[in-house]
């Protein structure tokens, strides 16, 4: 008689579980004024031990908190240049997050992200330098200009296909760059606006206290962008847009159930643009100047490289990518052009091997492992083929 061996269908990923008192009723904290919970706790009874087990179904908020806390605690103890790099990282990460909202969530392939940052930054800086508005107004003028620029740019996006729209926005960026460099009143400074007032006092500028203050501001900016990301992407707008995401059929479905996805796209675009405007104003304040380089293709490609390396369309991708590329680009300036080659090489390798950037590697690996174990299981069954449904009952823990 042959001994039948049973195999586990697949390994469960190791998971830490709390064991709360089974008798106490479950009480969860809610976000004020909403019915939402802070964390996604899931309770279940273990069928073997009959104990109540509690696990965190979505651990991402935990990682975000740990990561951001570590970042904000460690940075003030670093050297001046590292603090600057950290602040630049915050700014780039914010831009990337907002860009991801436009490209990933709204599905509008815009290359005018930096153009919006630049235009609002320029307008905000000009309002301060030439019109004499005090610096807090920069934080108002920026988003307002971003809102207007976003509204204008959003208009053709419903008519044009992805690549054609990308070309159009690239053209807009180029026009902005040429326009700014042509401005005769900025000739003195090569098209840059300098000596912008800032939330950093003049005496502190680029010294330790000023750097720390600047970093604090940039970090708040990053938090704000993350909040906006969360509010848009995980709430109603994001849900509506995800319904109409993957192509014509999805769009047809969305319309059939009454979703006005075009308007949702434009709303996200305009919201992100306003936020990008704020980033632009902040940028001009942080460096007390803004130069036409913000419109350049090189700068845009650098940001694009960040998103690609981290993973297009994911918040963690935008932030992780920004961290890696900013560190290489600004931290390794001693090795000269090699660092750009390094960024290009990372981009190449990541894109060839990873479907969705570095932050998607884990999922990709899990899929790969699942597929492989499925293949092995299929080979083990007597017929040498896929496990039929009626056979599956014999398999332990299906």
């Amino acid at each position, binding site marked *: 008689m042959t001994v039948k061996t049973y195999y586990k269908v697949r390994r469960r990923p190791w998971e830490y579980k709390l064991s709360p008192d089974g008798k106490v009723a479950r009480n969860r904290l809610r976000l004020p004024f909403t019915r939402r919970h802070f964390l996604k706790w899931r309770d279940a009874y273990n069928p073997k031990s009959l104990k109540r087990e509690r696990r965190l179904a979505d651990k991402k908020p935990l990682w975000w908190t740990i990561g951001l806390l570590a970042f904000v605690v460690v940075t003030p103890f670093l050297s001046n240049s590292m603090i600057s790099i950290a602040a630049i990282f915050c700014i780039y990460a914010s831009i990337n997050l907002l860009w991801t909202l436009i490209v990933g969530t709204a599905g509008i392939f815009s290359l005018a992200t930096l153009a919006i940052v630049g235009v609002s930054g320029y307008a905000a800086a000009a309002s301060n330098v030439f019109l004499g508005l005090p610096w807090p107004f920069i934080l108002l003028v920026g988003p307002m200009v971003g809102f207007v620029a976003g509204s204008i740019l959003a208009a053709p996006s419903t008519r044009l296909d992805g690549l054609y729209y990308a070309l159009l926005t690239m053209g807009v960026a180029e026009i902005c760059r040429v326009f700014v460099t042509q401005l005769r009143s900025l000739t003195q400074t090569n098209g840059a606006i300098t000596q912008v007032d800032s939330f950093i006092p003049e005496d502190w500028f680029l010294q330790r206290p000023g750097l720390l203050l600047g970093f604090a501001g940039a970090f708040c900016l990053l938090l704000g962008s993350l909040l906006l990301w969360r509010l848009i992407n995980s709430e*109603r707008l994001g*849900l*509506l847009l*995800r*319904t*109409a*995401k*993957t*192509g014509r*059929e*999805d769009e*047809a*479905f*969305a*319309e*059939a*159930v*009454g*979703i*006005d*996805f075009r308007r949702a796209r434009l709303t996200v675009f305009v919201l992100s643009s306003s936020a990008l405007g704020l980033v632009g104003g902040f940028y001009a304040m942080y460096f007390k100047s803004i130069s036409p380089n913000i419109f350049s293709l090189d700068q845009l490609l650098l940001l694009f490289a960040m998103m690609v390396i981290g993973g297009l369309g994911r918040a963690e991708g935008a932030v992780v990518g920004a961290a890696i590329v900013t560190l290489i680009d600004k931290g390794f300036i001693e090795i000269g052009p090699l660092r750009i080659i390094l960024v290009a090489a990372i981009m190449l390798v990541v894109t060839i091997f990873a479907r969705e950037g570095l932050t998607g590697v884990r999922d990709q690996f899990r899929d790969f492992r699942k597929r492989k174990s499925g293949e092995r299981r299929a080979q083990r069954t007597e017929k040498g083929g896929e496990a039929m449904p009626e056979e599956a009952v014999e398999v332990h823990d299906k």
Partner: protein
Amino acid sequence: MDNVLFGCKGLELSFAGRKILSGVSLSLNSGELLGLVGPNGAGKTSLFEVFCGRYKSDCGSVFLEGKDITRQGFYNRTQSGLGRTFQSPIVPMSLSVAETFRATRKAWKPYLSRHDAEWAARLAHLTVNWETPAATLGAFDRRKLILACILMRRPKVILMDEPASGLINAEIDELELIIRRLVDEYHMGVVLIEHRLELLAAVADRTVVLDLGKVIAEGTPEDVFLNPRVKAAYFENVDA
């Protein structure tokens, strides 16, 4: 015809000089199931596309409850109470069933509650785990999903484009049950495209036959079957 719920008048549609629809006029009462039949290329689906606003007709008008909705967009018509399903069983590729319902509930104000979604799912006989990704559902469940999403808002009219295609007989029977219930219990008007006449005979109250963009016959299924023009359209090569 004062209590006409939904209809169209003199619709014309042409692509690149080719006439797709010429002078189509239809009307639908509430609580009526209208079958729309016709051979391939008759313009049935195009007519639906004009009904729901994805194609712009050259002339003619579409009205719902006496209101002209010709100029409205698809989602707008949906919001005014015109539901529509597609020939291919489409569902959102990146959402789960629960998320699809949630998106539908929040498509426009007033937002619906989860109970509405549960009610609609029951009405559409959708009995799957809501955590399932919609893309992994079978063809019938997909059709039920979109139907449930549409039903959630209690539409007045539902346009169904070949809902039975790709289903096995038992499933078709279940589908007939669902549709009849919508018509009889909830007094919705349903327009059903089907190119198999015999299937329509069982459910439809009235049948309209479309050929080459024109209405060639209208009436009860039995009458329509015997109409020589219909026979000619369907069995061109057979002497009728």
